[in-house]
């Protein structure tokens, strides 16, 4: 096998598949591209005009960008909820579709990295963060840990996806030694990315709202809500739109996971709320601001109660017997809890950390239009990556994208590097 020839062929065919489809595909991709460009444009304005074009301030110095960063890291980590049943519990049905989770991990990490980068005041100096090139304040700064774990997770998942797709493209069976160790690594790594991201916040003694040991467990369990919820919805769309015969079994496995994690997530939030409010004192100020409003400032109150309502309704639906037979009910629960976690771990977590400020000033924050444009742009970019990944995978698994060998003899398995 000559990889120097077949790998470029793989890439060429992948580009071909990625740019070819019916009108629904073109419409979807044009829409996403347009939205992504709106985001690019808003970001370009922000770079030139300054971060002052956002609604952030010295009081609330992180906003919608870091909120979405936190959520998308969770989404990436949550994808592992397909990997564990597929590889640890040898769930055959899940194994057939596990690539969806791995591609989601790639797309979500790319989004997370974009969300941090648009939050930089000086993106032209982003190279200062590169180990070796800049001055990497490792291991002291948790942000350097995040660079390591997020970059590593992206590479691991790119390798797994690339290797599995490439070998299938060649018409071969993937060799375990080339991907299984990486899959196992990715499971531990998935936990690390969200733990480190939680430590970014919980390590700050000056912000009592974040300075709590339950933050990392909360992050992990909410990731195991948002990840499976997104995948359930994605699988439903894929089997309808791309006409891929995906059985119900993996959906039921994911819903079984959700039934537990949605409740655990509510329980963790409840524990937090109890500790905050029962003990009281000035460290409760942020929680009061979030849940009840403080001294007439209550911008986040409707957000957090929406999140709690969505997550609670989702829990009830998932626990009902009907959701097991009627999947459309489960779809609704997934959509609700996806939005619920997005609020709870985004706006509901980042903003109250800053309100009131460390000198107890009450300055509120609501994202402005420019920030929404950037955020929508990055979500569109993430969906572009995810859609194209899925499309290429579907074509390869269906055998429609297959390497044309001049001499079609299956050759010796050899040291084939992944993508």
């Amino acid at each position: 096998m000559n990889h120097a020839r077949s790998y470029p062929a793989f890439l060429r065919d992948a580009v071909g598949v990625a740019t070819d489809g019916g009108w629904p595909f073109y419409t979807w991709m044009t829409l996403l591209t347009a939205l992504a460009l709106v985001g690019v444009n808003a970001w370009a304005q922000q770079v030139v005009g300054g971060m002052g074009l956002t609604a952030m301030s010295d009081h609330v110095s992180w906003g919608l960008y870091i909120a979405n960063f936190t959520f998308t890291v969770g989404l990436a980590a949550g994808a592992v909820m397909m990997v564990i049943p597929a590889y640890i519990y040898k769930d055959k049905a899940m194994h057939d579709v596990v690539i969806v989770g791995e591609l989601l991990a790639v797309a979500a990490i790319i989004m997370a990295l974009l969300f941090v980068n648009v939050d930089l005041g000086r993106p032209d100096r982003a190279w200062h963060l590169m180990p070796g090139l800049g001055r990497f304040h490792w291991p002291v700064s948790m942000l350097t840990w995040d660079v390591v774990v997020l970059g590593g997770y992206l590479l691991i998942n790119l390798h797994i996806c690339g290797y599995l797709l490439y070998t299938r493209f060649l018409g071969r069976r993937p060799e375990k030694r080339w991907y299984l160790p990486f899959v196992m690594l990715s499971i531990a790594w998935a936990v690390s990315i969200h733990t480190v991201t939680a430590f970014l916040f919980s390590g700050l003694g000056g912000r009592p709202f974040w300075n709590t040991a339950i933050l990392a467990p909360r992050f992990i369990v909410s990731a195991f809500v948002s990840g499976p919820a997104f995948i359930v919805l994605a699988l439903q769309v894929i089997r309808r739109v791309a006409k891929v015969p995906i059985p119900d079994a993996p959906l039921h496995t994911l819903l079984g996971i959700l039934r537990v994690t949605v409740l655990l997530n509510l329980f963790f939030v409840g524990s937090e709320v109890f500790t905050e409010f029962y003990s009281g004192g000035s460290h409760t100020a942020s929680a009061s601001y979030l849940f009840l409003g403080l001294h007439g400032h209550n911008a986040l109150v409707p957000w957090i109660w929406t999140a709690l309502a969505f997550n609670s309704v989702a829990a009830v639906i998932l626990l009902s017997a009907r959701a097991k037979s009627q999947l459309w009910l489960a779809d609704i629960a997934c959509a609700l809890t996806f939005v619920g976690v997005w609020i709870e771990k985004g706006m509901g977590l980042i903003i109250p950390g800053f309100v009131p400020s460390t000198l107890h000033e009450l300055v509120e924050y609501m994202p402005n239009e420019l920030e929404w444009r950037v955020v929508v742009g990055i979500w569109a970019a993430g969906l572009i990556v995810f859609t194209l990944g899925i499309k290429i995978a579907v074509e390869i698994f269906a055998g429609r994208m297959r390497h044309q060998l001049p001499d079609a003899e299956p050759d010796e398995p050899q040291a084939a590097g992944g993508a």
Partner: protein
Amino acid sequence: MEDTSRRTTLKALGATLGAAAFARAMAPLAAWPEDLSIDELLQRHYKELSRDDMVRVLRRLEQETLDQYGAVVTIDDVRPIPEVQFGYALNLSVCVGCRKCAEACHIENNHDRATNQSYIRVLEIKNGSVDLAMGTVDYDHAVPKKGRSYMPVQCHQCDNAPCVSVCPIEATWKEPDGIVVVDYNWCIGCRYCEAACPYHARRFNWHKPEISAEEINPDQAYLSNRVRPQGVMEKCTFCLHRTRKGRLPACLEACPTGARVFGNMLDPNSEIRWVLENKRTFVLKEDLGTRPRFFYFFDK
């Protein structure tokens, strides 16, 4: 065959349109290079610059200030004095909350005029408490008001500074004389330090600072009061461009009640040493373990 070529044409058209739209979306970036030079882009960290490098950087920054603000300024790299550990103390019994210190800081440190920026915030707190939650910075009446006391807060130059720990690129660090500084040309503007600081001591340049040529204080240092670039953090430096040359901080000189005491804590004859040895002092949020070098004290 016909269908294939039609498809190819459409794809090419789509790609062209996409590229054009991308260029259009990125168009605002064209205005960026006005404030951005290659030298700036590739500049190394403060601690990695040789003496010669530093001289070149300082001349370039002076030229940039002239080009962008029309002001002739002198920027020095003022280094710490050996055997000096700076400390600051503030007498809460005599502070009247006039905010002259905040104003002096604003002028001395070439702060953005549009936002009336300053490194000092003065809290007005009801008597009977030193709880910050009981305070306000937005008071707008004659001072001192009966039944109120005043607490100016600025960077505490902590010995265990959370802002320094969290910085992912060592753009902020503690100098040998105890002052926490920022390399404005190395900071990437992630604002993690701003989230980490328990004293609201850090400021971000949300826009390019606005300041007229005649208002610019021309006596500047690389690590302190030079006009900061857009998109980076800044903070109080105990006026190191003054204090490292034997002068006092601008906020101290401006104080009409003599509430502020500054000096070398290693000098047994210094006023700061006398205050620390003889007064009941406290630091803000001592429980956080940040070990500030900014002390508050009462007369009685």
